[in-house]
């Protein structure tokens, strides 16, 4: 890499189902301001902007044009990248590349979604080829119900596992002031009262539609000493895509997740991921996906994730904290979701996560985003420079 890069500021809005008090630009401004405040920078010190969201979800065409005036991008270089569910993490990666290239010293990545303004399900259905099976697709819910059934069958996980994951995430979300859904779930019986979407997937197993924005500031090694916050170093990042899924069916495939993690781990000498990595903020749109994907990333053996979950292994104060922020199942402003993973990971490594700060001295953080036709972006962050 040409230059080392570090995250020196993160900011996010309080994520909600609806934000009628702000328009899209104003929502983004909140995140940009929070981020600058966190980094103790003025907008003049930001050299370039990387902006993104889901293009059809609010209906706006070239949304960055309206956004630019609200995030301080006027008169500055900027680019808009949109890669669906992975957009947020892609924004972070592009910001890393902007800084690493040596062309820009300090760059802000900002993603948002304002899902109440459009119809998310209609938006997601248009992912399908209009001439092929757009009329048929069941969107994310159909996909993740199949995934859950598949995981149960393959690993023997009992049906209450989804609710058990949700209980952990709910506990985490309660500790994270920015989280959207903050359910009080007393016990597993109560959790299992949630209605089915498509069995075994319950309403509480699936991510919500949220409104919110998230921003991070990335800077170069030379500028780090001048920054107010403890830097979180960017170790590496990777993107893996799959072919267009013309037919989603049969066996659920996780090869994109596995390939992304293994590439990242191999390049960075990680052989025992669950021991070497202190915290994972993974983009799992459903509780069941979280279990399966922990296995796919290589954090545990196949069929082991639900057993570790039963033992409470993934709580914020336990051996391997997973989604201490509450994860995507509690907060999902799509264009920001991937960036929130990176930002939350950075907060943990900095030791600034507040009530959901993980228990041990963190060294490495792993953040991912997922979307498209089975795409994964994975980012490895480090508390130490080396």
């Amino acid at each position, binding site marked *: 890499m040409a230059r080392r890069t570090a995250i020196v500021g993160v900011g996010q809005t309080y994520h909600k189902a609806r934000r009628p008090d702000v*328009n899209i630009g104003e929502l983004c401004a909140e995140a940009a301001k929070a981020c600058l405040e966190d980094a103790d920078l003025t*907008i003049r010190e930001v050299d370039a902007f990387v902006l993104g969201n889901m293009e059809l979800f609010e209906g706006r065409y070239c949304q960055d044009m309206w956004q630019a*005036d609200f995030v301080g991008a*006027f*008169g500055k270089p900027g680019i808009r990248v949109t890669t669906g569910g992975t957009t947020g993490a892609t924004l972070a990666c592009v910001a890393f590349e902007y800084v690493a290239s040596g062309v820009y010293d300090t760059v802000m990545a900002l993603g948002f979604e304002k899902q109440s303004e459009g119809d998310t399900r209609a938006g997601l259905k248009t992912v399908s080829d*209009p*001439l092929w099976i757009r009329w048929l697709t069941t969107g994310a819910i159909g996909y993740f119900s199949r995934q859950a059934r598949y995981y149960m069958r393959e690993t023997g996980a009992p049906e209450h596992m989804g609710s058990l994951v949700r209980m952990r995430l709910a506990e985490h979300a309660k500790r994270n002031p920015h989280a959207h859904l903050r359910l009080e779930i007393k016990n597993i019986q109560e959790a299992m009262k949630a209605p089915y979407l498509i069995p075994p997937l319950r309403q509480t197993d699936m991510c919500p539609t949220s409104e919110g924005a998230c921003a991070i500031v990335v800077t170069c090694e030379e500028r780090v000493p001048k920054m107010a916050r403890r830097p979180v170093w960017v170790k590496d990042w990777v993107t893996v895509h799959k072919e267009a899924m013309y037919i989603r069916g049969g066996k659920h495939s996780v090869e994109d997740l596995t390939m992304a993690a293994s590439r990242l781990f191999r390049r960075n000498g990680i052989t025992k991921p669950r021991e070497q990595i202190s915290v994972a903020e993974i983009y799992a749109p459903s509780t069941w996906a979280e279990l399966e994907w922990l296995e796919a990333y290589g954090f545990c053996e196949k069929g082991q994730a639900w057993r570790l979950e039963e033992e409470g292994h993934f709580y914020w104060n336990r051996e391997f904290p997973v989604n201490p922020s509450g994860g995507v199942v509690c907060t999902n402003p799509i264009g920001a979701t991937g960036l929130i993973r990176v930002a939350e990971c950075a907060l943990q490594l900095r030791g600034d996560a507040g009530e959901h700060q993980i228990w041990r001295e963190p060294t490495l953080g792993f953040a991912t985003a997922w979307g498209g036709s089975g795409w994964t972006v994975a980012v490895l962050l480090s508390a130490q420079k080396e």
Partner: protein
Amino acid sequence: MIEGLVETVQGRLYVPYRNWLGKTASLFFRELRDRGRLMATRCRKCEKVYMPPRSICPECFMEMDQWVELPATGTLLTYTVVHYSYSDYHQPRKAPYALGIVRLDGADTGLCHLLGEVDFGKLRVGMRVEAVLKEERKGNILDIAYFRPLREGSESTNSSDSLSPEPRAGDSRRG
């Protein structure tokens, strides 16, 4: 057409959206709708007066909470005459119609809007214009019906009086 080959398929995207306008724009539209007033925001730092009003000064990246009432009169910064119709739903008028950017007196920025009661051939950059409000207002930018040329001698009219209602059919006041 070749047998056994579909060349093109007609389809469409049809998705309704509901975009929130935010506090600042809501306040602007409510004042316009309920009181017929044109309110702008002012940046405390650079002192620019923004019309249409925004919550953030794009140059200073500062929140703006100062409101300034502006008169309905202003200067035409640029204009065009639209000669095509692409959608009855999206275009506020049938073509041809005139559009312009108007800088209201006291503002530093221009508002893009329709121009009315004007001979297209007489449109000039720099011409003085005034806002004509609709009688029935709904709380959106089209509550201003259009801007029309200020007639000579009417410059002295004080701000809020010049917000004359849209002339009704048969209204001869404007000749």
